[in-house]
């Protein structure tokens, strides 16, 4: 008996959250999120590498920018190259050769946003494959099975995704179904000791429904929670209220992941509202169109006005692009080579990660409220240009914007 016991090792949880600092004014916190591949410092922005690559950027470049976790997409990778091949390649980490953490979403969002012919039933989401027209069912079990093959450090439950602009009984139906699907996902997870399954809070823009969802889902012992169903086309006034309602009722000792949020202003405000993790395609997608993110908004490098502008995108930026190239060079390069896109992608990822690092630093040093003030001042030409929702949201956490 003793011999048998000695072979049973108590596996530690694949996720540990250490709260490093909490802002005394807002709901912001700084954490170290210890995951199987490395520690992630939060608040964190996670770049999206949809098809097992961050468009045009090597894993080394991503690592050099300080990225500790990025996203892969279950729908896309589940279609091409498929879970079996990725398993053969030593999971998605092995396939991409990314040594740090990966988060995969469930495929649910793409189902609804990309695939026209989808039908949602209790079983799962039915759709027609865009490649061979075959009918496919993405069930909670199937989604988790694919994500198990992908081997991501954080997996998302399959949720019944409903657009935030939808109202009526469908929203309630989706919320309850998402709870049932969460349970099915938990049951289906083959690797609870290696892969963390996050729940996704739904309920649309209805406080009652969202609260009900929070009550139910927090009963399940999942390692983390995402706030879903937002960042669609809804009004920002409704958006922030749902975010703060959610963080009010999520456990303190578990990470809070706000899905699909990536604009700088949104990030800063939602950190103040208590969120730890964010993802968005926007920074990398907009880069490919020549749009560079800067502390005062964005800069469309392809515009004529930059043809003779010999300073870098942001003179204060330390990214490889800004250290070597001017707006004028990039402007011209967009006419000659794809590398122009890569330069801006690198800059934008650097911008996002640096922003989060600055936020984190300011919280740790007890000056997050001051940081918010100067951030907003830099971003907007004047106080009366501050979006009203940001004023309200920050006021709700004791920040009066000057």
């Amino acid at each position, binding site marked *: 008996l003793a011999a048998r016991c000695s072979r049973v090792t108590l596996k530690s949880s694949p996720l540990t959250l250490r709260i490093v600092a909490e802002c005394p004014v807002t709901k912001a916190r700084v954490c170290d999120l210890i995951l199987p591949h490395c520690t992630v410092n939060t608040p964190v922005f996670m770049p999206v590498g949809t*098809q*097992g*690559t*961050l*468009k*045009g*950027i*090597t*894993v*080394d*470049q991503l690592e*050099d920018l300080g990225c500790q976790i990025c996203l892969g997409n279950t729908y*896309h990778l589940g279609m*091409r*190259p498929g879970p079996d*091949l990725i398993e*053969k*390649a030593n999971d998605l980490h092995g*396939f*991409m*050769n990314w040594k740090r953490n990966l988060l995969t979403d469930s495929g649910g969002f793409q189902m609804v946003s990309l695939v026209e012919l989808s039908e949602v039933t209790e079983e799962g989401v039915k759709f027609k494959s865009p490649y061979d027209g075959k009918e496919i069912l993405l069930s909670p079990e199937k989604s988790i099975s694919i994500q198990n093959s992908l081997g991501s450090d954080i997996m998302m439950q399959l949720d019944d995704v409903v657009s935030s602009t939808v109202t009526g009984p469908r929203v309630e139906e989706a919320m309850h179904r998402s709870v049932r699907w969460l349970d099915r996902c938990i049951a289906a997870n083959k690797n609870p000791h290696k892969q963390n399954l996050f729940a996704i809070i739904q309920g649309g823009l209805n406080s009652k429904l969202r609260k009900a969802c929070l009550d139910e889902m927090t009963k399940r012992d999942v390692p983390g929670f995402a706030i879903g169903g937002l960042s669609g086309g809804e009004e920002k006034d409704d958006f922030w209220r749902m975010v703060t309602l959610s963080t009010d009722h999520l456990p303190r000792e578990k990470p809070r992941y706000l899905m699909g949020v990536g604009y700088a202003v949104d990030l800063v405000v939602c950190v103040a509202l208590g969120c730890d993790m964010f993802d968005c395609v926007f920074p990398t997608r907009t880069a490919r169109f020549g749009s560079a993110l800067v502390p005062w908004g964005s800069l469309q490098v392809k515009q004529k006005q930059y*043809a*003779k502008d*010999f300073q870098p995108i942001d003179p204060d930026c330390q990214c*490889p*692009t800004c250290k*070597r*190239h*001017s707006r*004028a*060079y990039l402007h*011209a*390069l967009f*006419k*000659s*080579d*794809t*590398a*122009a*896109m*890569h*330069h801006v992608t*690198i800059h934008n990822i650097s911008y996002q990660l640096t922003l989060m690092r600055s936020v984190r630093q300011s919280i740790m040093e007890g000056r997050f409220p001051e940081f918010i003030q100067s951030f907003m001042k830099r971003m907007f030409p004047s106080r009366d240009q501050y979006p009203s929702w940001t004023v309200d949201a920050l006021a709700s956490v004791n920040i009066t914007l000057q």
Partner: protein
Amino acid sequence: MAGGRMQLELSRVVQGRSRLGVLKGLGRTGQHSLEVPGCLLYTHFGTVPHLTQDTLHTLRNLPSVTQVTLSNIAEHQEVLEEFKDGFRKFAGLHDTVVYCSLHDPATLCPTGYTTNKTVSVWGSGGRIELTVAKFMALQKTVQPDWYQSMADGETWQNSTSRKRVRKSVDRTLAHLDECLLVHQKSQELDGVEVFGVVEGGDILEERVRSARETAKRPVAGFCLDGLQTASMDQRLRTQLITAVNKELPEDKPRLLQGVGRPDEVLACVEAGVDLFESFFPFQVTERGCALCFSFDISPDPERAVLELSEEKDAAGDTKQNGDLNHDDQTQMTSFEINLKDKRYQDDFRPLVEGCGCYCCKNHQRAYLHHLLVTNELLAGVLLMIHNTSHYHGFFSALREALAKDKLDLLKTRIFNPLNFTDATKTGMKDGLCASRPHTG
């Protein structure tokens, strides 16, 4: 004339034609050098296609000379004039020699626009007409370390008449004389080298005439134009280059434009060419292929014979294929593998076993296949890194072969019978790319 310090030091001349040596005294301060036979670093507007500095510098032993082309630069003349400090600084290029050519070797220009006084280049906004005055104004703005003089090389089409060829020789000489006149008067071009351009189409007498006349001018070296891959077969090319080189001074370098295939490079080195443009790896990258031919010249001739027969077997095997894009097939050479092919879907080997490039050290064929099938930008980045590395490895091996009298061994690798015209039409073969270790 305030010339530069470019100097060709030959250490060997093999069989009276193939030359091995170093081109020294490059750059404004003359501190750079380039081994010959060698190639220039091909760029689009100063950027190696798909690559930023970080990805570029995963490559070691890059050529010290960066090629830029007026076809990319001409439309930005105003910007560069306002910048004032030259193209090298504008592009963020540090510590490299800048060579400025007229055309981009990877793209064939539309014909019919050249006149007695002008040549045209095509930028992103359309055609830009250059007189010698404008050409030289551009050189003064670009401030390269070295450039080719303006030339009419529109003789590469099969239907070019004798009269037209003669005109191209005459015009090119006239352009050269005008360029040199302006050059001598320009302080901005103090220390900058000029290469004359030898034309002559496929007509031997015109080639000889062009070479003789160009050699009379005070140029630092010679570009051989109108011999592009598309224009003629290698036999004729060798014949013409041999005749041309007889007329050129031995101590000045010869740069062949528009030829990049390894077998053609080898043949042209044997005909006395020193320098090439490295656009071939870019073309291979654009068709989703990876260079993988062996240039291993390690000392085991018996193994070489064994491997040759193994290659033939492998080639026989590979006749059953997955889908293949027909367009790729007609341009593809047997120096490369087409990673879009289904067979690579679960091939977890690196592109080339033993290749030390970033792509081969970090990624597998299956991943590259996935990136190509899903149209991901990273495919271009990784393939460009590998193809550039492989190509420069080939040149390195070529120099080593010349130094150690192993050119014949290298030729058995490169001039594989599978390689001749049929190879590209009869279906994809691994051909020269049957995977095995090689030094590179």
